[in-house]
């Protein structure tokens, strides 16, 4: 391989990396307040500075971190913490399953890296791609930039700590809802996708209201299977 084409390859990797970082930027901004909260809440729950940062640096899962801090504060047992973590994190199993065609053929270090970075936000960007559209550099750019933003926000939360205004009352969770809406709605281009969205929405509401644990997963699976059955029924209706 001559040097020029090697440079071209490097340039295209770099381009994809930047494209991924750019694509995840709105989501990174939307979670900044949550990052702040994750940092300050960890400190408030009795973790030291290093432990608080480690929550973001190695656990790296917003909802798990916030729930865990609540449990630290309440003095819950280790087994309670792990069982709760398992519940909160179970949706990642679904992401990992959905991304299997995209990532399982990658070399080990790519699998480990992209697996570690596989958050709601990364899945929001890459989960809708077909395996042949998937670019590992794009995913890496998105995942790393999101990781850096999350950790920087947590650090500010740890340092600023108690001086921050009451973040929970500001209603910043709307930012997360807005980004997910912005990512999902353009995907609605067919009747089955519309059905998936409507069923997931209604079911998640019902399950949340009856306080079913794991409701998120059940609502999602119900919506996915229904949408697929509708797709098959449509195909059969057209008589192929």
């Amino acid at each position, binding site marked *: 391989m001559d040097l020029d084409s090697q440079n071209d390859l490097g340039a295209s990797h770099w381009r994809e990396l930047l494209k991924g970082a750019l694509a995840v930027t709105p989501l990174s901004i939307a979670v900044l307040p949550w990052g702040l909260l994750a940092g300050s809440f960890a400190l408030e729950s*009795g973790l030291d500075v290093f432990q608080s940062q*480690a929550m973001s640096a190695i656990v790296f899962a917003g909802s798990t971190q916030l729930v865990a801090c609540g449990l630290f504060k309440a003095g819950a047992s280790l087994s309670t913490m792990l069982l709760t973590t398992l519940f909160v994190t179970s949706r990642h199993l679904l992401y990992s399953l959905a991304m299997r065609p995209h990532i399982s053929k990658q070399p080990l270090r790519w699998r480990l890296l992209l697996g570690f970075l596989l958050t709601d936000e990364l899945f929001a960007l890459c989960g809708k791609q077909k395996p042949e559209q998937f670019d590992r550099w794009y995913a890496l750019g998105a995942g790393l930039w999101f990781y850096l933003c999350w950790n920087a926000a947590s650090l500010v939360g740890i340092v600023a700590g108690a001086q921050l205004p009451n973040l929970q009352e500001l209603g910043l969770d709307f930012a997360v809802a807005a980004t997910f809406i912005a990512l999902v709605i353009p995907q609605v281009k067919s009747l089955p996708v519309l059905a998936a969205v409507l069923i997931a929405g209604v079911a998640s509401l019902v399950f949340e209201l009856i306080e079913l644990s794991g409701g998120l997963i059940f609502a999602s699976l119900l919506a996915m299977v229904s949408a*697929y059955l509708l797709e098959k029924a449509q195909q059969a209706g057209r008589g192929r």
Partner: protein
Amino acid sequence: MIWLAIILMTLVVFTSRYLFLEPKLPLKLNRHARGILAYSSAAVLTALWVPLVFIPEGELNLKLSNPYLVAALVAIVLAKATKNVLLTTVLSMLLFFGLKQWLG
């Protein structure tokens, strides 16, 4: 104890993210499984945002005085019309904070 908990939580979270990315895991996704999983992104993301918007304070709130609901409806229209993630997010957030000030 705290460090142990952090490390064990890391393992649980990482395992849940990595498990099915492992090619040695003897699991072949057939046509149907792939077909179902094609809807996972639309389904999960919706199931994440809908409760935030409709149940902002622990109970169902379908009133137009719910800033989450109004701003979310506007976000849906914006997303449909512009297909622009950043624009949709920023405009609907501005509206949300405006409504919150005005209503609150």
